[in-house]
């Protein structure tokens, strides 16, 4: 990761012209803030020493009327700060007006995962790969609560709302792997709803698209993220408190059902069992506690999840990609 794991970082990397200008804006604003505050700090300290009770000093009234002073120390800072209002507004409106040739990425937020779909059809979970130097327009919506998509490296975030579409656009000018977060509090695993923004050269991006489109392994890899996002492992992983049946090596094996039948765990069985676990109860008398995912999991996610379960061999532990 280019986001170095240094213990102390003092300034975040910037990967777009807007991000760089935002930095200039805040730096210039900080200069003004210092001009407005440092004299106060110095004055308080100086007065506390100079005019301490018992210290001989000139305490005669200057006779200056207070109203002009009041008005000037209110108006001058206000007018000075308005420069930053205008600058900030200009930058904000630029970031609200995407160019016509922007590449549109569809994003879906859901407790607690991100899904991105590229214009060529490929989709990915919790990571976003984009080409450098190309205007990207992200159209987002949420399937449950309010989330927000936040890329610190672009100095940009936008709420992801249920039942509405919101947008952001940017043009990255630096390759690398950066952090991406959900920045609107969204429940239990809010702080795990993060991911990576991978900014690649055009050639790398084209190769990545081809890879993720063609490879079944890519599908299974994405399925692992789906498996995590839906919290499947909380019950199905070895060592989980709810001792749900292990899924490792399940695909293709015979399964004994409560009604005496035995079926083979094929793709359609896995699919049905995820959507409606109450059908085809398992033999062995275990309590059926799994919720139905009918209407909860999207079809393409289900494909990936099934692909992942198919790919899990007899080895129970898969390496955690995080």
């Amino acid at each position: 990761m280019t986001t170095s794991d240094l213990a102390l970082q003092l300034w975040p990397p910037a990967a777009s012209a807007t991000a760089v200008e935002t930095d200039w804006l805040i730096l210039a604003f900080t200069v003004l803030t210092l001009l407005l505050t440092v004299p106060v700090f110095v004055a308080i300290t100086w007065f506390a020493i100079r005019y301490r009770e018992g210290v001989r000093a000139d305490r005669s009234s200057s006779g200056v009327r207070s109203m002009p002073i009041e008005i000037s120390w209110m108006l001058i800072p206000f007018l000075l700060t308005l420069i930053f209002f205008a600058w900030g507004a200009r930058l904000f409106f630029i970031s609200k007006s995407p160019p016509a040739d922007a590449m549109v990425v569809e994003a879906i937020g859901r407790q607690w995962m991100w899904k991105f779909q590229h214009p060529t059809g490929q989709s990915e979970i919790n990571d976003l790969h984009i080409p450098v130097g190309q205007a990207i327009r992200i159209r987002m919506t949420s399937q449950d609560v309010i989330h927000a998509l936040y890329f610190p490296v672009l100095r940009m975030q936008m709420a992801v709302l249920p039942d509405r579409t919101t947008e952001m656009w940017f043009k990255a000018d630096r390759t690398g792997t950066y952090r991406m977060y959900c920045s609107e509090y969204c429940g239990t695993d809010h702080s795990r709803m993060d991911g990576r923004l991978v900014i690649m050269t055009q050639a790398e991006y084209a190769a990545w698209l081809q890879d993720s489109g063609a490879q079944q392994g890519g599908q299974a890899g994405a399925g692992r993220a789906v498996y995590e996002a839906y919290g499947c492992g909380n019950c199905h992983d070895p060592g989980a408190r709810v001792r749900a049946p292990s899924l490792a090596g399940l695909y293709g094996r015979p399964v004994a059902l409560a009604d005496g039948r035995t079926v083979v765990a094929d793709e359609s069985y896995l699919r049905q069992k995820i959507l409606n676990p109450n059908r085809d109860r398992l033999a062995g008398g275990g309590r059926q506690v799994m919720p139905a995912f009918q209407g909860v999991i999207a079809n393409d996610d289900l494909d990936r999840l099934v692909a992942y379960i198919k790919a899990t061999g007899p080895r129970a532990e898969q390496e955690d990609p995080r």
Partner: protein
Amino acid sequence: MSGSATTGDAHAFRDPQTPDATLDREADYLHAEHTLRSWFFTTDHKRIALLYLASITAFFVLGAVTAGLVRLALVVPDGQVFSNDTYNKLFTIHGVVMVWFFLIPSIPATFGNFLIPLMIGARDLAFPKLNLASWYVFMTGAFFTLVSVVLGGVDTGWTFYTPLSTAFSNTWVVPALIGVTIVGFSSILTGLNFVVTIHTMRAPGMTWFRLPIFVWTHYATSLIFLLATPVITLALVLLILERAFHIGVFDPAYGGDPVLFQHLFWFYSHPAVYIMVLPGMGVISEIVPAFARKKLFGYKFVAYAAIGLASVTFFVWGHHMFVNGQSDLASLAFSVLSFAVAVPSAVKVYNWTATIHKGSLRLDTPMLYAMGYIGLFVLGGLTGLYLATLAINQHVHATYFVVAHFHYIMVGGTVLAFLGGLHFWWPKVTGRMYVESWGRISAFLIFIGFNVTFFPQFILGYLGMPRRYHVYPPEFQFLNILSSAGSTILAVGYIFPMIYLVYSIWFGKRAPANPWDARGLEWTVPSPPPAHNFLSEPKAPEIPYDYPIQASESQRHHS
């Protein structure tokens, strides 16, 4: 009659410099009656203020302990200390308790209650029974909120955003909402009482421009209580109905609007910031002249500013929604309006600085808190401008930058003003002096601890650490450890006053009527004050803040 003659009246029945321990003990409000009943059914504004003080102190402890646990959790980046759910409940309880059960009632319900009648020369508030009722309403709300905590807590954040709070949280949201809704009524009753009292109960000669700024800021605060609180009451009732019956106001799954709640919530909660800020400004405006021995700089301007800020603050709520799908035009308007309210608020510190100029300064504990307040409040106010700047907001919204900013206002502002006021009026309230050196030590500890805790959070926010994150990237660990370390210093600074102030109640030196030689009618009565406040009819001073050293004031040049 002049100010000095008023002091003479006070001398007539008790010499403030050498108080007699036993002579008129029966007369003061603390010793007039001793039964439990005399406390829990009192209509004396001073006793009710103490009931509030005890309650909000208990809530402050709860809020501080949960904050400590949050800081403990954030020492490690991988969320090993608590489960995510526990962490979410901790910061929610911290926020709910600190905002509604400490910060909002803090100064108005305690010092406002205690001092407004004394400052304006009245025997009590206009509606003493309503005043007692407001405490019971407060405690009823507190009960429901505590029930939700005991049953297992709430995890929605103190902001209760929909549809998380209505359809997705599996915690005790409804009892907490009922609690917060009920507490709103106690704010409304208190505000109503203050407005009527300040209008109708002023002593003869106590004209509006002879009122202490403390009274002005409480008048402005009361207007916000009255006008803004009903909106949050409505919003929270709708939220309860939505959660219980899916009425479809906020949840898009039932045809509602997911952002509507944010508008209603902030229509109250932004003015509520001024409920917390204005009374603090009032306290500082009393302390600074007393310890500078100088008239407050720009008295009239500060008085008008209080009313002006309380009005404009109603029109800035949308700055919480720049990146929440609000229209761009609305964001532009809310941005410029926010500048219009933040700049005048922040530059109020210039008035206090100008008051200190050419004063004769005594750096006693209340003054140390006031000076700390001035430094922290101006930083909090100006970082608010960063957040009001649209392009910067796009980056630091909902990050630790916001957390740092509002803690500079809430803790650096309100809590320091509260503690400054507590030390300033403690001799008046209890009739006892605390040990000054302990007061100074804890004021320093709090100032240092506060900055070490919260300054690193500005940097964390700019680096992009989102707020309400239990698990965070390892590169943020150093600054988080620094912040947590600071909070331990802050904790010590909070614990000290609880010890030495309580100690002083039994073992402190007896306080004279006016230990600071301060102006204002509350200092003309004995410490503690008699049950009925004034033994003879109070005389309003000719000019407010009639300290030995005069400050410039425009009106004086016209006459």
